[in-house]
């Protein structure tokens, strides 16, 4: 599925059924980001599908 990286201002293609899985597949440390699903913040265990609008916000510098 396609998700949006706010810091880099770009879309990337990634596989995963939950927020934790897409972060792991993108090699992003979950303690450094927050993730929104259709505009609402969600936590790692949240299930996601290709129909969802997912954005990853980097809130901790570096990493």
């Amino acid at each position, binding site marked *: 599925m396609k998700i949006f990286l*706010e810091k880099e201002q770009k879309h990337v293609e990634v596989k995963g059924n939950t927020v934790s899985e897409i972060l792991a597949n993108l090699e992003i440390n979950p*303690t450094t980001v927050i993730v929104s699903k259709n505009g609402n913040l969600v936590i790692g265990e949240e299930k996601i599908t290709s129909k969802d609008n997912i954005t990853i916000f980097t809130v901790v510098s*570096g990493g």
Partner: protein
Amino acid sequence: MVCKKCDTEPVYLLTSGVRLCRSCFIKYFEKKVRKTIRINNLIEKGDKICVAISGGKDSLTVLNILNTLTKKKNFELFALLIDEGIKNYRDFTIKDAEKFCNENKIKLHIVSFKDELGYTLDEMIKILGMKPCTVCGVFRRYLLNKKARELKANKLATGHNMDDEAQTVIMNQFKKNIDVSARLGPMTGVKDDKRFIRRIKPLYLMSEKEVGTYAFLKQLMGKFTECTYENDSFRGDVRDMLNDFEMKHHGVKNNIITSFLEILPMLKNKYKNKSTINACISCKEPTSSDQCKACELKDKLKEKA
């Protein structure tokens, strides 16, 4: 799994494993900041607090929470923004800061490197050939203290969070700068020296991720922005190391800070007579040596420009 308290969708998972929805997270966050202020006696009746803001998530979070407490705790506040002159960064965050202060009727003072020192940070870096964070840090600290004092503030509130402090504690350990750690904590500065404005850190016990979550939920700024200059590489390495540890072993940053707070009174006692405060021979601002770092850099700028 739903919020522990009200059976709605969670937006945050605490390191303890507790899930919190939007409303419960905001309550948790604000309560913990108020508790930090109360137990460390950061704010007293009649204080005039200068909130150092950049327009980023940390400083706008501090400003937002302190602004809700002014009547209850009977203190005044205003905001101070230092415009270093960093193209494609500060110009954006200034807009967020101005918008927030306008909407919340908070007096905002903007002081620029260009007006006060003759050059923007971008220009200084080219002239001096030094690391941007070093130059920026020296002049920011200098101007924040000087301007807060001129504006009659008795305290300076900053957006330092738990991550910032944990990094500094570890950096000081790695560099054997324990005397520097003795000057850390939720409130710093010397109470009876009017040249130094005491600094308070209301977000001392909040992780950077918690602050980011709060700022997002409260829509405090347009977007998350980062300085275009690369961070100090040593701090960057420590930060990445702590983030890796935090991912594998939840709560390590909090443990660093809580254990540091236990030994801090002993460190302060040990180093209480080790540093004297002099007046800078050039500008009369407080310094631990004969000339302050800001004047040293100003002299270098004159030489090399």
